[in-house]
């Protein structure tokens, strides 16, 4: 355990430790289950195995088989059952093994979770968290690698988290579990092993709808999420010596979206680029671009650009897969060109 300065980590005061993104998620689950015994989990292989990505290790031992339940291969039950269990006063945190599998429970996610409260006149709350291991991870193929958060952003009724650091993974997951609304929690599989400082406190809760400035800058605003945040920051560091001072903003949640922080930045930098791993067309980059030009059109000196995943399915081959999502080099090149407009 080390104590780092607030400036270095962006976290105000307190004791911190450097832990992995996976560990941060595991701790959030354990702490919230200790805090509130209505919190429980279900999913495939989360118990005895501790999850395909090891995120739930140790939880079966601590909380027992009624609170850490291994299901059969039945995604509609995992999500729809969670919805039903929420109506009966519990707080289910469920895992789909891959975010892509939200399509195998889409009626349950986009109808039951998103709309039940509304359709039934607000008589119920729907405190469900769906954990969704997301993004490319090295050869998992077209149906196990997608970034589908935009779809969740389009359908009203779902909150959407896209943590990029261990600290945010933990703090946002704790916020998600405490939230009375359904949350789709997109964990990036490529970040599971990344380490970073996380506040020690049990009350490290990161509020939804508050963006994080990952790197301050003055010449160009880059909005990035998930795996792209580090690449954008790396690109910024490469650009700095060339006199291009990039501000990198990580919105952390897409619903609610902290557009104010983004607009304020663009009003200073006059240029915006959105970087995301999800396919380009009709991805959330378009929404951010559109909102910014709606609100700050006359502050923009250049069009808003996007650096995004290809409009293709993802090939299985790990090298081809990387070629389908933005690299640091691509971000550097695009940022240079945009800054030159």
């Amino acid at each position, binding site marked *: 355990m080390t104590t780092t300065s607030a400036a270095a980590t962006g976290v105000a005061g307190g004791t911190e430790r450097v832990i992995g993104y996976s560990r941060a998620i595991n701790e959030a689950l354990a702490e919230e289950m200790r805090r509130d015994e209505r919190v429980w989990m279900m999913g495939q292989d989360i118990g005895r195995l501790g999850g395909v990505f090891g995120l739930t290790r140790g939880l079966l031992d601590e909380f027992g088989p009624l609170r850490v339940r291994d299901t*059969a291969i039945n995604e509609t*039950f995992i*999500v*729809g059952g969670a919805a*039903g269990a929420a109506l009966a006063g519990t707080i289910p945190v469920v895992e789909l093994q891959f975010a892509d599998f939200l399509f195998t429970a889409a009626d349950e996610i986009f109808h039951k979770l998103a709309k039940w409260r509304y359709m*039934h*006149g607000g008589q119920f709350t729907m405190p469900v968290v769906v954990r969704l291991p997301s993004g490319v991870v090295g050869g998992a193929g077209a149906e196990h690698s997608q970034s589908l958060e935009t779809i969740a952003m389009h359908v*009203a*009724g779902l909150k959407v988290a896209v943590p990029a650091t261990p600290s945010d993974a933990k703090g946002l997951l704790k916020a998600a579990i405490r939230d009375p609304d359904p949350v789709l929690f997109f964990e990036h599989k490529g970040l599971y092993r990344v380490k970073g400082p996380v506040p020690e406190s049990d009350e490290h809760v990161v509020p939804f709808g508050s963006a994080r400035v990952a790197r301050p800058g003055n010449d160009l605003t880059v909005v990035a999420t998930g795996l792209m945040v580090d690449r954008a920051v790396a690109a910024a560091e490469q650009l700095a010596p060339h006199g291009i001072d990039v501000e990198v903003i990580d919105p952390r949640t897409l619903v609610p979206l902290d557009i104010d922080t983004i607009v304020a930045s663009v009003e200073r930098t006059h240029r915006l680029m959105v970087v995301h791993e999800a396919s380009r067309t009709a991805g959330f980059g378009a929404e951010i671009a559109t909102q910014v030009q709606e609100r700050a059109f006359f502050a923009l000196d250049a069009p808003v650009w996007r650096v995004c995943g290809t409009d293709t399915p993802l090939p299985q081959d790990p090298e081809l897969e990387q070629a389908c999502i933005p690299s640091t080099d691509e971000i550097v090149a695009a940022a240079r060109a945009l800054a030159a407009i």
Partner: protein
Amino acid sequence: MTNDPGPDREQVQREVYRKVVTIRFAELRIREHVEKEGFGGFWHPGIGQEGLQVGAVSAMQDDDYLYYAHRGLGYAFAKGMPLEPLFGDLLGRANGSTRGKGGGTVHFADASRHVLGQGGTLGSNFVMGAGTAAASQLLRDGRVTVVFFGDGASGRGTWHEAALQASVWKLPVVWICENNGWALSARFTEQSPTEHVADRAPAYGMPGVVVDGQDAMAVHDATAEAIDRARRGEGPTLIEAKTLRIRGHYEGDRQPYRDDPVLGDEIPNDPVHRLGESIPDDVRRGIDAEARSQVEQAFGAALAAPRADRSVIFEDVWA
């Protein structure tokens, strides 16, 4: 309101009769309204199926959970919801339980009476219901969840996923299939490889029971037994109540597809008559008069209520 212990059988039957006949009057009143005034949405009449709905729900305890199906109001009324909010939902009034959000005949809810609602996509109730039962198991609250569905909905994959898991976990849930022989224009006999939906129960290691759905008390008894079993921790039961779809799929459906004698107004084995037989005439007439006026009054009140204000559109998206 379980079978035993509780009020004696005669009282149960009288109460079931009262509710069934009330819903019957409600059915007729709504049909009249839809025919004369039109209707925004789809009204799926449940006339003729009220007996099984009320019979089954009458076997539930007050704090048991209910997911109903789309065919009429019998389920919710039997669970204790007053008529006025139900009519209000139907008519898109501010006094409806969903204030114009759910409405049609499709959605109403009453959290205090554990009427949890219904999914607009058939079969979503299966997984929701199993999940509610899993919560009861976790909380040890002793509650049972009852899920209604049609013969058509029984083909949805959510059934398979929910039923397997419910059986393996021995969840306190009771599945009640209203087999009225039709799923819109699709005959059950042409869509099922087995004679009964209940024939599928062994695949899930659960008891399958076929019961005459026009016999409200038989449905009551079968449900009471299944609920007891569930409450004892022995897991789910599949009950199939055989009934008939008297009218079209929705009111206004001209049923060009229907090649059995279209039933129209005749209700074979009418549960109202069957339940009424053993009730002394004067008592029955008293109940009928009371039910009729209750319906008239509630329908009038709903009609007189204001429509929901536009401001509700933005309410209830988030908690």
